[in-house]
């Protein structure tokens, strides 16, 4: 809360002052133009129609002058349209909905855990405590290979999971958009921890018989923020290639990465990561403008790898028994907060309205010149965005971001409910959250959405979208059958 203002007992009046200030600064141009327009109108009315005609006739219109002025107008218009970067539209996207047979309710998970880790009751306890506080629900899913006791993570099973997740998502996307495989010009697949040869992108090319001059890219190892990195790459490619469609597939394959040892810090991902995937169709064709759901406005990427602690906070390594797993360090939240601050400093000037930027500037000047003890002003991002999609990394991440950005419960509802229903599906979680907001009928034309994702490295990436058309709730998606149950209240601790 900005403490440059006096105490909050008189905050009611303060609220109106702030509102008035915002309206004034954000619409300052209108406030200047209106008196001028009114003045001109009054002048015209005063002069009367004959005077106006006289003035018109007195202007000499030479042929050359007419040509020059029309040329000038056309030239300015062309330069303006040509120098604008191409708009990137999100035509539609589809999320994978796992079958109900893959469900892992708490009881199943704990039973498996007790049987597999029977020699380590402390680790079993640890997992139980994590699960109680995790914010996950009873309907999250794990792939079939992990349901075995002990799990059987063969390469065949991993390929099988990849095929099911990716192909279902793409099939449903093609049904929704009506696009044919031959129309896809760019393909980007990101899956962090599973990268077979030939790549998953080659697998998609093979299944759908995509064209032989397709530009395909397979990104991996980039963590939970890889979805937005793929969108950034697609954006750069679509700027260079006119009239193209780009298919982006974001997923995380759980089968080969289920930790089978007993180190506690490495058991954490087992409790949180779940099966999921999304396929997104981007386009820069003008004719998709009318049917596209969103338009991409900005993508901002921040990489904190130069800092030692940030680099090591999500680290894949072997435990003393030689089993490979991902170690999440205890300072994860602090580092996430730091990365977010860096990202916000870059994205703030791009998206915040003038009122917030001025306030921030004044506090900054004040702190530098007058009194360094003033608390830094945290810009109010609710002015810039209507919806927030925060990567459902875990309950702590969402809590931390809600506190840092001063968001209300409704703003983070999509993230919390996605975590509850689908678990942490890594890079595709942002798309499930977007699906939630649409299914609730909250998405109106002109709404701005902010997607934030964190990932190993440590990276913080964000994307800003603008809604192109009001989206009706009848669109099908992973939330179709259960949206009426939500939002649910998620207790702090679920007693197991």
């Amino acid at each position: 809360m900005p403490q440059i203002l006096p105490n909050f007992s008189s905050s009611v009046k303060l609220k109106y002052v702030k509102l008035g200030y915002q309206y004034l600064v954000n619409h300052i141009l209108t406030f200047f133009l209106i008196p001028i327009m009114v003045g001109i109108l009054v002048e015209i009315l005063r002069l009367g129609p004959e005077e106006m005609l006289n003035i018109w006739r007195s202007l000499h219109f030479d042929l050359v002058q007419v040509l020059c002025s029309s040329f000038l107008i056309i030239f300015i218009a062309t330069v303006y349209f040509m120098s604008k970067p191409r708009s990137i539209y999100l035509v539609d996207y589809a999320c994978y909905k796992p079958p109900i047979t893959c469900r892992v309710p708490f009881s199943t998970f704990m039973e498996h855990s007790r049987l597999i880790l029977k020699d380590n009751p402390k680790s079993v306890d640890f997992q139980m405590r994590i699960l109680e506080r995790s914010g996950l629900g009873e309907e999250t899913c794990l792939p079939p290979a992990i349901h075995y006791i002990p799990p059987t993570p063969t390469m065949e099973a991993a390929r099988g999971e990849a095929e099911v997740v990716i192909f279902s998502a793409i099939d449903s996307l093609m049904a929704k958009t009506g696009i044919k495989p031959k129309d896809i010009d760019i393909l980007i697949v990101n899956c962090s921890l599973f990268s077979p040869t030939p790549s998953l992108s080659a697998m998609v090319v093979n299944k759908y018989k995509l064209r032989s001059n397709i530009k395909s890219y397979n990104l991996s190892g980039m963590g939970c923020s890889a979805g937005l990195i793929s969108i950034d790459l697609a954006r750069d490619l679509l700027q260079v290639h006119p009239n193209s469609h780009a298919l982006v597939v974001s997923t995380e394959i759980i089968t080969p990465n289920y930790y089978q040892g007993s180190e506690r810090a490495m058991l954490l991902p087992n409790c949180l990561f779940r099966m999921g995937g999304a396929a997104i169709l981007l386009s820069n064709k003008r004719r998709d403008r009318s049917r596209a759901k969103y338009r991409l406005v900005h993508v901002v990427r921040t990489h904190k790898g130069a800092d030692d602690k940030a680099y090591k906070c999500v680290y894949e390594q072997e435990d003393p028994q030689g089993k490979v797993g991902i170690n999440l360090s205890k300072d994860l939240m602090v580092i996430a907060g730091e990365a977010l601050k860096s990202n916000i400093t870059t994205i703030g000037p791009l998206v915040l309205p003038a009122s917030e930027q001025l306030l921030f500037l004044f506090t900054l000047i004040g702190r530098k010149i007058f009194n360094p003890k003033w608390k830094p002003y945290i810009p109010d991002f609710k002015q810039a965005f209507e919806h927030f999609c925060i990567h459902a990394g875990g309950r702590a991440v969402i809590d931390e971001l809600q506190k840092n950005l001063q968001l209300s419960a409704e703003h983070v509802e999509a993230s919390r409910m996605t975590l509850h229903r689908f678990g942490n599906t890594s890079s595709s979680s942002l798309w499930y959250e977007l699906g939630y907001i649409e299914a609730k009928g909250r998405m109106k034309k002109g709404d701005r959405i902010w997607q934030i994702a964190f990932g190993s490295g440590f990276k913080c990436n964000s994307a800003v979208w603008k809604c192109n058309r009001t989206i009706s709730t009848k669109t099908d998606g992973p939330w179709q059958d259960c949206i009426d149950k939500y939002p649910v209240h998620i207790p702090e601790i679920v007693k197991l």
Partner: protein
Amino acid sequence: MFSYCFPLLCLFYNLWKIFDRRRHQNCYILDYECYKPSDDKKLSTRFCGEVIRRNKQLGLNEYKFLLKAIVSSGIGEDTYGPRMVLEGREMSPTLEDAIIEMDDFFLDTIDKLFNKTGISPSEIDVLVVNISMLAIVPSLSSRIIHHYKMREDIKVYNLTGMGCSASPIAINIVQNIFKTQRNVQALIVTSESLSLGWYTGKDRSMILTNCLFRSGGCAILLTNKVALKEKAMFKLKCLVRTHHGAKDESYDCCKQKEDDQGYEGVHLGKNLPKAATRAFVDNLKEIAPKILPVRELLRFTLLTLIRKMTQKYNKTGAAARPVINFKTGIDHFCLHTGGKAVIDAVAQNLNLSEYDIEPARMTLHRFGNTSASSIWYVLAYMQAKKRLKKGNKVFMISFGAGFKCNSCLWEVMRDLDQDGNVWKEFINSYPPKTIDNPFFEKYGWINEEDPDTFHIPDDYVIP
């Protein structure tokens, strides 16, 4: 009068803007550095025989087959392998081994590249890393950013699984980014991780990868800054990618999977050469019109037409198919050193002489098949032999799993001499008088033995 100037000025300004934009979109290679592992990692044929022998899974037949493959592969005695093989731990590699293997490469080569060019790591705007067989968290690209303390707003991409043809794919990403932003410097790091992909079973099609792939890597610095044009080595003229994944036989011919006993390895199918040829031909069909002079294209079209007409009227006696002469548009050929058979096949298809394929053969002999970075070693050989003169065109082509065939054409910007190359210390001994494996005759004894009574005599020392 004045009003006439104004639209004219506007027109000129518009045209200049378009021209200026084009000027800033060129992709230049500032410098590149190939990795030369330390000498304690050399894998001689003798040592390879030892490695095969100590694998208890392999019997006599496999031993014969593999020795024959190694000896006739065109790979010499000085190629390099991963540390864990030399330390005898190839049956149980750990994640640590893989990371050490990569660190050895990064710390050596990227340091050298930065020192050579005088560019500091914080000036890098784009980083693309492609290492096919290793995907860890955090990614190897994050590892590089962490070690060199690169900037926060760096654009980083970590490509994996794209096989031996990944270098042109990385260049494609950089080329596209160069077209959208000005004054960008990019670093591409390409290599292959052999530690965790080491096959420990006994399926023959999968052990071949153990025998043919070797350690190697390359770091390349690219830019589109016009100010650095004078210092640049190469300019990218054209890049074409062909993906045959839609065809099932092409997709399945090079696939990572488990064998019958559950050991993971990369299976090389029997129709690999056919799939490669098909992808190769398609790729050439697409790139030929872009790089060959009009004269050659006309000649080829005319000859094809004439042949078609003579065939129509004269059913018997088909004339020889006209072959397009790639040497009219290309001066040097950088072929992916997939193996002796690959180089021979490409040479035959493109009608290349021994001189043209000497760099590829010598790279295969000295460094083995280093996967995606092999074409850079071939390029370094040509540079060390002082073959690259200003205005020359260099054609790079590589094949990879998927099945992909990617190629690109570079123009040499200035006369290049050796100045500190990976081939520096031994270039004068190349080409050697013979590249046949010296142990070719010595293994003949295996063929005469009866498998039931065969045993390696106690005093026999593998030569």
